[in-house]
């Protein structure tokens, strides 16, 4: 557990104690609400997790890196961005992987595109996002994030 997660636990713990001291019945209701929220999202999150596991088994990040290396810049950027949308990769895997891409001469542009869509655009999390925020929000946010991920990557290629 990293320090930020721990801080969140500690902060929430403190908040919970404050809440109990101030008003027990309100706290009880809040916890009930939290439990309900968890129950409502559990199956969706479980599906996402299992799907990510599956996608990473079929398309391991290393093989994607290998594939991207062989393409020309533009195609590599689109492919990298597209692959980034499919899945979520934890930061401690994503950053070394992107580092490898840059070192291998793939270039900054595809690497940044990959990094940005990796975390910001989620095909896998889309059903959950649609359920929580509505279809329009989910579609607009994901499309805009994808477009801007490529723009960020391109501008970065110019600067670096």
């Amino acid at each position: 557990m990293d320090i930020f997660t721990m801080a969140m636990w500690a902060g929430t713990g403190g908040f919970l104690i404050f809440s109990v001291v101030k008003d027990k019945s309100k706290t009880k209701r809040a916890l009930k609400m939290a439990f309900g929220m968890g129950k409502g999202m559990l199956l969706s999150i479980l599906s996402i997790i299992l799907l990510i596991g599956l996608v990473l088994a079929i398309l391991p990040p290393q093989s994607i890196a290998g594939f991207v290396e062989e393409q020309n810049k533009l195609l590599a950027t689109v492919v990298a961005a597209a692959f980034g949308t499919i899945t979520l990769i934890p930061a401690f895997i994503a950053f070394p992987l992107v580092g490898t891409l840059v070192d291998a001469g793939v270039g900054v542009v595809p690497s940044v595109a990959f990094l940005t869509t990796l975390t910001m655009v989620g095909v896998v999390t889309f059903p959950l996002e649609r359920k929580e925020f509505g279809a329009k929000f989910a579609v607009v946010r994901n499309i805009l994030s994808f477009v801007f991920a490529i723009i960020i990557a391109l501008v970065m290629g110019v600067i670096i």
Partner: protein
Amino acid sequence: MINVKKDEKSKILNVIKNNIFFIIVLISYVVMFIVKPPMGVTSVKNSVYYLKEMLMIMPVIFVLTALLDTWVPKKTIMKSLGKESKIKGTIFAFILGGISAGPIYAAFPFCVMLHKKGASVKNIIIILSSWAVIKVPMLINEVKFLGVKFMAIRWALTMVAIIIFSWIASKIIKDKDLPEEKEEENKCDVSINRDACMGCSLCAKNYPELFGINNKKAEVKEHDFIINVELLNKVVEQCPVSAITTNIVKQKGEDIINEISQDETDTVEEKESEVS
């Protein structure tokens, strides 16, 4: 709006429809294990990592979201993250997203709650995006593998991009495109302080679907329909001894909340001590 009793078949169909995503994933796993067992094992192993990540962060997110929902008044959220919050709201949204741990889906329930309490679409998108991609917890990792210069430029560009596209999104997405307090409508708690009730049966007369008289005192009937908030609020107001308490008054504006939450807590406490 009483739900019509569905027959068994459509019930099963509904369950399948609601969980179609999960079912598809499960079928994919079965296929994978038949076609390529070692890959299936790898998939499960991968999933275990994400499962751990989820269990580390989601419980705390849910509790934190519910606590904030309970304690932070709507006015505060509107002021700090609403449409009028301007640049201060933008900065606050970046900070909220940037310091939070966990994957992007962890931000979903949190942001839904904020929006219900008056945060603007623009600021919600900023929180979601910065939660995903410009995280302080990731910073050290990024510097380690990609260098300070890379990190600094990427952060600056990403922040500018987020500001631009959250603004574009707020032009396209209207508040009504997002779910409002529907959930609360369904789940709303109505309770009666039976010690205070004097059995005038006014509530049962005005809203017979929800209230009944039992043992000369009012009681809340079992219900699975969407409660008519306006009618319910009227009934609550009319009760001569203010024995009815609800948690759906949020929708009716700030002043009513404060007024009711005061005696609400009292009565709920009484009710709970009575139960235990």
